[in-house]
């Protein structure tokens, strides 16, 4: 019979194989391309490792690798601006999604038990349709002669159409809408398990509803808030579809710049370097948080 140690190793094997084949190997390939130089051929970079040419040729080709693409990214203000803008738009979107997510998740968790599965289903429902179509639909809503402007003009709130489409605002709206379910679900899951007597105790001890929320509810669901923010912020930083459809020509976001560099400029090394730096931008705060929570 296999011992517990041996069985434990077997259990750990599938996720490690999965991560190795589908994350680590592709990452190493991208990292290698990032260190290569642009070349006018197919594939559009060099060196290309060719193990059939022998060991010395392989070692020879290693010397062609350099950090040139990374240097380009760090020295180009426009590219830096794209990172900064991406992080800012993602941060604003995350904050907006958190506020809206709480406004949805709190009443959901307080709704009668038998309604809750239906409400969860309604939150998840948009995910069943294509992301692309949902983002595209916002064009019809936000464009100058779109639904939003028509409604506001009709109500007399505004006298001429607002230019929302093709701005950063439209991008934020699109991101918040697209990723809201990923904020609502962890918040709801945490609020639903909440012992309501703790809230009653806070009210009993003199806390008004706002104080109960900020001093008790929010601190107690902190892990869910962080999880939800991560699930929105991380994809939002690298988001490509939403800024491409709803953003303006001056909406500079990393995802879009990487796409252009890759497909329009055919500069695979630079695009790969940018992708790796983007990974770093997201990973550094995440690892800092992980190492903090690992502390007793």
């Amino acid at each position, binding site marked *: 019979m296999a011992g517990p140690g041996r069985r434990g190793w077997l259990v750990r094997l599938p996720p490690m194989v999965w991560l190795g084949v589908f994350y680590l190997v592709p990452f190493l390939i991208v990292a290698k391309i990032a260190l290569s130089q642009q070349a006018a051929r197919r594939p559009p970079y060099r060196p290309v490792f060719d193990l059939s040419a022998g060991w010395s040729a392989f070692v020879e080709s290693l010397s062609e690798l350099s950090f040139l693409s990374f240097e380009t990214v760090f020295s180009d203000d426009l590219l830096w601006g794209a990172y900064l803008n991406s992080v800012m738009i993602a941060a604003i979107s995350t904050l907006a999604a958190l506020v809206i997510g709480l406004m949805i998740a709190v009443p959901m968790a307080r709704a009668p038990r038998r309604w809750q599965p239906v409400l969860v289903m309604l939150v998840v429902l948009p995910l069943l349709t294509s992301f692309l179509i949902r983002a595209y639909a916002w064009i019809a809503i936000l464009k100058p002669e779109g639904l939003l402007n028509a409604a506001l003009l009709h109500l007399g709130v505004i006298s001429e159409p607002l230019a929302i489409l093709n701005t950063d605002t439209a991008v934020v709206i699109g991101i918040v809408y697209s990723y809201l379910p990923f904020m609502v679900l962890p918040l709801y899951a945490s609020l639903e398990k909440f*012992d309501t*007597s*703790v809230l*009653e*105790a*806070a*009210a*009993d*001890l*003199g*806390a*008004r509803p706002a*104080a109960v929320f900020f*001093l*008790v509810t929010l*601190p*107690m669901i*902190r892990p869910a808030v962080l999880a939800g923010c991560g699930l929105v912020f991380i994809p939002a930083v690298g988001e490509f579809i939403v800024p491409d459809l709803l953003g303006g020509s001056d909406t500079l976001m990393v995802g879009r710049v990487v796409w252009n560099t890759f497909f329009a400029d055919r500069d695979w090394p630079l695009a790969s370097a940018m992708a790796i730096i983007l990974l770093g931008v997201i990973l550094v705060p995440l690892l800092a948080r992980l190492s903090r929570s690992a502390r007793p």
Partner: protein
Amino acid sequence: MTTPPSAPSIAGSGPLISIRAVRKTFGGVPAVTDLSLDLRAGEFFALLGPSGCGKTTLLRMIAGFEEPDAGQILLDGRDIAHDPPYRRPVNMMFQSYALFPHMSVGENIAFGLKREGLARAEIASRVAEMLRLGRLEGFEGRKPHQLSGGQRQRVALARALARRPRVLLLDEPLAALDKQLREDTQFELKDVQRRLGLTFVIVTHDQDEAMSLADRIGVMQAGRLAQVGPPEAIYERPANRYVAGFVGDINLFDAEVTGGGAAVVQVSVPMLGHVLPINSAVAFPAGTAVFLAVRPETIAFLSPNETADCIVEGRVSAVSYLGNSRHYRVVTASGGMIRVALANGASGSAPAVGAAVRLGFSARAAVLVRD
């Protein structure tokens, strides 16, 4: 009631809390029905009853977590029935303790004081006082999950007392503790209440807990108060069959009033084959069907030449040994069952199972109760 609703009553006179004709229904199901009750300043009051009798709903209406459908809850003469909980000078200790898991013991206790906007020094001194009261010195930096059940219970008590409430409400405060700790904690709770001179209202389904803690007990039955009185009165003179059966062990015999006046009535008890004169505060008209209630510990095994007001012969069918006492079940000739409790160490014989016995009790030990 002559007290005008807005005039605060003078301390020591009138009730501290006056619950008047309060009613609460949940989705058409009545939880509390036209209940009136006065709570005196400084008393330890227990609401006793089985689950679903409405005792917790009544407590939650005093705390402000439920709003009565009708009626008033006067505190110092002012109706607080519709005030939110954070505006009531009343605090509650929860059955689950409801400690804030993300705050230390000290922060938990200080929570209510900070909401009052007290000065930092005042908060610190009150927290220190409460830590002393709860024997929690040295634990103020711990989080609730680092405490034992008994310590958590004391934090909950300290936190609820920190604001110096006019009334402390306790919802089954000892239910989560094991038996030994529960008994020790009962004494502590009583001691704290006496020392602070505060009014405590406890909700419990445990009659022993209610009896040992409370100055007065309100026995609840289906949303109403079946009887309110000191533990002795509840135990010795139960108002009805429900109270008699809920509080302690009791023998209930079908009986019929055959005559008598205001103080003493004659009842015939078919099962015992006797007509007995029984003291009764209530004047029952002849022909009324009642129950003769006799506590097991007031029944004695008689020696052959002993006599008593009421004597029944039977055979011991079961004995259970409970350390400080023995509980007997005696089957009478007519097939009825009588429970007898005999303190161990008491003089007299201790009959074994199967033994033929003569049981006797005094008419003064028996009470007449209605259904």
